């Protein structure tokens, strides 16, 4: 017999969660900042795409925009965006070992090795990209 059908009506108290829940704990705030990084990633992409668009419009327009990138507003934006991008990189690589278990036959890679390898890979890729853009003529 389902005892719920004969139990007296209970008066349950249901707490309501406020939309500011993420301000209540450091770890929740960390999470929100992590999510916020994606906005700066998107902003970087839109600006880059815009630069490509200006590139198609001719040297005067493009060079004018490159000049405007030296303004304090743009520089500040890119400094902030850089910090958020780094935050994304480190938090993303930080969780990869949880998301994907790496195996070779019977051997399972320790999480620290996975994280370390991906970070090393990132450094190599970054240097590669930097080298490509900075040295090719």
């Amino acid at each position: 017999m389902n005892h719920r059908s004969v139990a007296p009506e209970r008066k349950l108290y249901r707490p309501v969660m406020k939309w500011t829940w993420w301000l209540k704990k450091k770890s929740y705030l960390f999470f929100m900042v992590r999510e916020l990084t994606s906005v700066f990633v998107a902003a970087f992409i839109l600006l880059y795409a815009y630069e490509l668009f200006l590139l198609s419009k001719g040297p005067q327009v493009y060079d004018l925009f490159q000049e405007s990138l030296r303004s304090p507003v743009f520089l500040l934006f890119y400094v902030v965006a850089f910090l958020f991008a780094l935050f994304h990189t480190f938090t993303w690589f930080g969780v990869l070992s949880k998301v994907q278990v790496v195996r070779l036959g019977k051997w399972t890679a320790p999480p620290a090795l996975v994280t370390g390898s991906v970070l090393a890979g990132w450094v190599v890729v970054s240097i590669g990209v930097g080298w490509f853009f900075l040295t090719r003529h």
Partner: protein
Amino acid sequence: MYKKDRTEPFWWGMFSAGGMVAALLVPVHILIDGLAVPLGLVDSEILGYERMRELLTHPLFKLYLFVLLVPPLYHAAHRVRFSLYELGMREFRISMDVLCYGAAVAGTIGVAYLLLKVF
């Protein structure tokens, strides 16, 4: 009562791919494009008009730019979508989803058009 969701895996897959690309490539690009060149730390000609137009004649470079610019849009769209839920916006869920992913799709079309038709 519960039904396997048929579309979420796609958006999550794109979020994942975009997150990987963003993690690997965005910091160095911001460093070069947004900081090193404008600040004069490196020769501004590396991003100059002539050089960029020359690079854009190579299909591999266009492919690289497509990978750099497109998947992270889906990463951002997915994160913004769920962040809006978590900031309390649960009404108009469908409209917000369409706006987020729609923006990513629009960006994809824009970038593809630039890389394929314009250059």
